């Protein structure tokens, strides 16, 4: 009989603990999730940029979701340089054709994939970008070639609304 009583107790302990754990998790989750991006931050989804004043060999930097976006109108030399690179020489292999659908225009987040600094234009060993923080070198397609950054600079979703306007996001 005493054995049976112990089993009843065990069941009660387990059931109480389980309900308690679920309850605690239900209270903790809102506390954690409140720190994620809120509705007003998420609402700032897209930006339209007028690029008519941009001449070949120049870069425009605009802010999108709090981050800089580089819009580079590339020269023919830069395009040729980016497209002649062999895939096996790349740390993060991506074809320039996939990164810049319209070869003259390169649109990417101006954020170094190492620790988030903004790389400098027309600098570094590969004539592209150079991050002054920890020395990452990017080529004319924004691909990582040398230094601690693990990936190429990210290409966001964007489209040409008309000949002179790019919509990012």
């Amino acid at each position, binding site marked *: 009989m005493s054995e049976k009583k112990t089993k009843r107790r065990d069941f009660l302990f387990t059931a109480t603990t389980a309900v308690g754990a679920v309850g605690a998790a239900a209270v903790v989750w809102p506390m*954690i999730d409140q*720190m*994620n*991006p*809120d509705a007003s*931050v998420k609402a700032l989804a897209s930006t339209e940029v007028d690029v008519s004043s941009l001449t070949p060999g120049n870069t425009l*930097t605009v*802010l999108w*979701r*709090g*981050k*800089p976006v580089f819009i580079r109108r590339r020269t023919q030399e830069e395009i040729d340089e980016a497209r002649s690179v062999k895939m096996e020489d790349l740390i993060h292999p991506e074809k320039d054709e996939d990164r810049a659908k319209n070869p003259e225009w390169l649109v990417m987040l101006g954020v170094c994939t*190492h*620790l*988030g*600094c*903004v790389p400098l234009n027309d600098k570094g060993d590969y004539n592209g970008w150079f*991050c*002054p*923080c*920890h*020395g990452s070198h990017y080529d004319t397609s924004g691909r990582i070639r040398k*230094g*601690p*950054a*693990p990936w190429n600079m990210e290409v966001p979703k964007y489209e040409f609304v008309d000949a002179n306007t790019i919509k990012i996001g």
Partner: protein
Amino acid sequence: MSDHDYRPKSKVGQWFNDRLPLLTLANHLTDYPTPKNLNYWWTFGGILTFCLITQIVTGLTLAMHYIAHADMAFESVEHIMRDVNYGWLIRYIHANGASMFFLAVYIHIFRSLFYGSYKSPREIIWILGIIIYLLMMAAAFMGYVLPWGQMSFWGATVITNLFSAIPLVGEGIVTWLWGGYSVDNPTLTRFFTLHYLIPFLILGLVVLHIWALHVPGNNNPVGIDIKKPSKDTVPFHPYIVIKDGFALLMFMIVFAFFVFYAPNILGHADNYIEANPMVTPAHIVPEWYLLPFYAILRSVPDKLLGVVAMLSAILILAVLPWLDTSKIRSAVFRPLYKQFYWILVADVLILGYVGAMPAEGLYLLIARVATAYYFLHFLVILPVLGFKEKTLPVPLSITEPVLGGSPNLAAARNKESKIE
């Protein structure tokens, strides 16, 4: 310890103490037997308590004028500097106080390393100390973000991005930390909250740190166990109180020099430019007290491994009591360890120096060698040294070398006869 025998003299005192034994605690703290050979390196515990209280008091007053908002933070700091009565003084004490806090904590840590204070039975004191040190770094980092200058913004960006090195969940964690897609207002407000909270967590841990200290009692320069109370000890009050007080005065002279004559020398000019998410300053450096770890981060050419190396450099300290295999505590009786100790001090200073320099060429090479040596010291030299080193004979008590009966008996007698 004679705590249990203590009884307040007055009737009111007895009545109160029977209900809440605060007077017993006060008596324990004043009578607390302390080794009589403690030198000035032992005064930094008191100095650190002073630093913590200074930071809390100045921090509370600054919080009455500071506005934690991305559009107003920078201006509100200038408002404190220009408009608030003595605002410049309070802010300079708080900003330089952080540096003084770290200066004192580094001396405190290196004192423990020299005299083996982290060894049994003081491991818990040591680990609590390392947790306090980690919280200090978190508080200092978040505090540096609050003025919302260029170094604030980009320092916050780089440090939070360290978490993006974690495989799979890294990016999600960074977005969660930011409360957005970049460092912005949500980041600032939560950093302010945490910066306000952490000092009180540190305060609680300091109480535990001292509690854990009062169980075995202080280590001492000879590094031997002593009887308490005995001929080898003196009561904390007035002996240690006076000594700590004098050292604190000396420390405050250095503190005041920075506050009144060079209040910005330890900071960075770029932080007087308001945060701009479009431009990274040409040369990002953390505050001086984080430079050795920054050098370790940059010396590894891989993102994840760099972050792992930097964190390991700090966390390796927590297991130090088990890495050091020597039974002898004090470096005074460890001729080889003493040399390696000073090489480690030099190594950390070199790491600090190259951490402030650009990560290229010779600086990068030096950083890599110094990083390798740092880990070599803790993971190879210390464990091996405990078995290989021939230590010097250790006295049986603090008074023994003076009164005779030690290996230095002849020398002690000579000294006595000369005095006679």
